[in-house]
């Protein structure tokens, strides 16, 4: 009747990236090539608060490229917060595509609980 799956988030959806930026009141993402410390990265560019260089998401691979110098050029929690916002928005987008309703609740430990109600056949 029930199963539990744990998932490492991969960032592959432009719409959900934009929604996450709006949710966290960040600048809208842009497409292009961004300079990191000693390199460049091409993809969807997101500017995180307090970060010297942006995070660049390759939506083909789902991976991010960034250079925060182990936190000295940008706090890890800002990237984590973005990933959390992305996962929430992506879940909502996919559930609504299926016609399901979604409710969201913030939890005391900082996590966010989403409940998707799966309707019966009409």
């Amino acid at each position, binding site marked *: 009747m029930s199963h539990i*799956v*744990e998932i490492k988030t991969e960032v592959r959806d432009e719409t959900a990236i934009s929604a996450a930026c709006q949710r966290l009141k960040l600048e809208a993402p842009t497409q292009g090539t961004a300079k990191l410390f000693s390199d460049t990265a091409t993809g969807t560019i997101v500017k995180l608060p307090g970060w010297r260089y942006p995070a660049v998401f390759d939506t083909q691979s789902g991976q991010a490229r960034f250079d925060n110098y182990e936190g000295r050029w940008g706090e890890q929690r800002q990237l984590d917060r973005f*990933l*959390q916002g992305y996962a929430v928005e992506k*879940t909502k987008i996919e559930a609504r595509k299926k016609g399901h309703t979604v409710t969201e609740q913030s939890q005391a430990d900082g996590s966010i609980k*989403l*409940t*998707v109600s799966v309707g019966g056949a009409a």
Partner: protein
Amino acid sequence: MSTRTIEIIVESNGSTRVQTRGFTGSACIDASRFIEEALGKRTSERKTPEFFQVADERQRLREGGG
């Protein structure tokens, strides 16, 4: 009819845990697959005791010929 829900916990580091509730047998696996695939890569999966209760009952029925 019981309420069927998919519960997703999004941790503060962005990792997620998807759990189904109220489904019959393996229907839960099909029901939540679209969200699991959309979010990223599975790092673990386990069936909860409820899942096995249903499986055990079916096996007992088969073995008992009934």
